[in-house]
């Protein structure tokens, strides 16, 4: 074997163990799930014993209004949660990106919610939302304002608030890191060029932070689609189906309804949805870059 050829193969050789582990740890369960989704599968059976039913599980779900309700709850939850968290997190980062005494303590305090176990967060907020003894309603009561039916009528809003409380810090620290790695001198140049604080944010800081913000937003979006524990503890998906996001429905389909095949099909729908979002996002950035390049070449031809 020639040395050049050996050199060319070296990277593959080093990558091989990682590829094998990936294949086992990632692709095997995934394949298992896809395979299971084509079966009428009861928890008492092994996957081999279950009857193959083709796309029946998918069709059943497609025609199930509860599935659509759940998908809509998931989308609304993810949309509001990610939008608010992005705005709040980035806003806080812009606000706290300065060297004032005590700022580091403040920053550390801001990221505390993220470190609490989701179940604890769920319990905490459930007590705070309690209609009679909860913190919120007692406070409202003492101010003479009638209490709010947090986890009843406004259940979705309430879980969204809890999630924002827990995950805004995530956006905050990443945005802050992005902000602090911006080229200082470009900002100084902008100050000399006459940019107000707002214009600096709008024309310099945000565009330069954008790559980090896109990835951060994507991570949060994926997470928001899969959130389970907090909602499970707070509302168990209720009242009715008002907070039953897909992840929760999957877990109930598998455990309560004992339909593993349908649960697997549900998971695949969720996966496809996420995939579509991610690809859409990448496609969008690609398209924008391509458009910018096209404008550039057109301009260069003019010049």
């Amino acid at each position, binding site marked *: 074997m020639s040395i050049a050829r050996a050199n060319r193969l070296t990277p593959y050789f080093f990558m091989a163990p990682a590829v094998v582990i990936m294949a086992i740890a990632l692709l095997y369960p995934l394949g298992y799930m896809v395979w299971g989704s084509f079966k009428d599968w009861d928890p008492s059976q092994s996957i081999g014993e279950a009857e193959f039913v083709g796309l029946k599980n998918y069709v059943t779900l497609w025609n199930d209004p509860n599935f659509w309700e759940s998908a809509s709850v998931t989308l609304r939850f993810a949309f509001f949660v990610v939008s608010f968290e992005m705005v709040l997190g980035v806003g806080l980062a812009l606000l706290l990106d300065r060297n004032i005494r005590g700022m580091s303590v403040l920053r550390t305090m801001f990221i505390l919610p993220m470190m609490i176990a989701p179940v604890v967060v769920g319990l905490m907020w459930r007590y705070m939302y309690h209609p009679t003894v909860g913190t919120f309603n007692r406070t409202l009561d003492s101010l003479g304002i009638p209490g709010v039916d947090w986890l009843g009528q406004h259940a979705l809003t309430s879980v969204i608030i809890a999630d924002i409380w827990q995950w805004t810090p995530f956006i905050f620290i990443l945005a802050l890191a992005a902000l602090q790695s911006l*080229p200082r001198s470009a900002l100084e140049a902008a*100050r000399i*060029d006459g940019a107000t604080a707002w214009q600096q944010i709008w024309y310099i800081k945000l565009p330069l932070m954008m790559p980090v913000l896109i990835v951060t937003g994507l991570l949060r979006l994926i997470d928001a689609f899969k959130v389970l524990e907090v909602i499970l503890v707070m509302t168990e998906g209720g009242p009715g189906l008002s907070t039953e996001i897909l992840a929760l429905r999957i877990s109930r389909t598998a455990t309560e309804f004992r339909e593993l095949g349908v649960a697997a099909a549900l998971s695949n729908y969720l996966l496809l949805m996420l995939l579509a979002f991610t690809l859409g996002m990448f496609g969008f950035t690609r398209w924008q870059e391509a458009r910018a390049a096209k404008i550039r070449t057109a301009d260069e031809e003019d010049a």
Partner: protein
Amino acid sequence: MPTIHLDHLIKRYGDVEVLHGIELEMADHEFTVLVGPSGCGKSTTLRMVAGLEDVSDGEIYVDGKPVSHLEPKDRDLAMVFQDYALYPHMNVAQNISFALRLARRPKAEVDAKVKEVAATVGLTEFLHRKPGALSGGQRQRVAMARALAKDSSIFLFDEPLSNLDAKLRGQMRAELAVMSQRVQKNMIYVTHDQIEAMTLADRIVVMHGGYIQQQGTPEELFKHPVNKFVAGFVGSPPMNFLHGDIEERDGATFVHGDGFALKLEGAKAEAARTHTHRNTILGVRPSDLRFDPEAPSETALTLDVMVSEYVGAQSVLLCKCGSEDVMVELNSETPVAMGQTLKFAVNPNGVHLFDSENETAI
């Protein structure tokens, strides 16, 4: 076209004081050049004028009005940064026009201005590139163009030509000289380059260790440096320094050192005779030494030629006078071989004397 006055400007970073009371007066449309070794506080001074650094003490007056509390954008100035400070996400045209667009100038005017300054600095082909796809010199020109596009009354330059090749630098220097004549703005310019300082400046300010050593026209600084530091800093190749004692013999005054005894004349002799102590440093510029085998030894230095550096029409000889190094500037035609011992006449107007303790001029 304002006057600028730096009134006892002090800058501290924590406990460290890096500028110790800078006192500077700049007239209407004057071209002021700050020079000094690395770390002496040139950029800091410039950034304080720009408003990017807080003033620890003292005040900056523009047209008699204190400005140290104003934001940079309210000071009506443009600046070229030492590290370019371009906007990485904007292309060259957008970089150049940013200030104009913020000021909401009409698009036609902005486009015309961009074309004009881009042509001045030779960037027309690159208007649609991002800074990341430009060479260091090209980026520096973008920074320059960005400052020029902004019609400010004060221009601040922090080593704006340091990354250009010799030809381009010469071109830009000429361009700047013409521009400073034409636009009649106040310019403060930081540089390491002797030639830039000498050719562009109405006034040169030599800084060292956070103090102003001397300020004046290029000619004043070149001919009458107030201390050894300024003498050694201004002019290229630098001034030669030789240690010697002042002696009086036969009614004349001499500087006597290792391998030379030079007779002083006129006012220099008088000043040397009345000076408090005898230890001095003799300063002679390389260009004030003239090859002359016939020169009497009391007006000449006898030097051993060590190395000859050919730099075109002129050569620079590295010589020894006793144990000390001396540089001589010489017409390249002069037949000189290494290892020779030659006599060089000293231009009597080019003799400088410095106190050996506090290094001030005598």
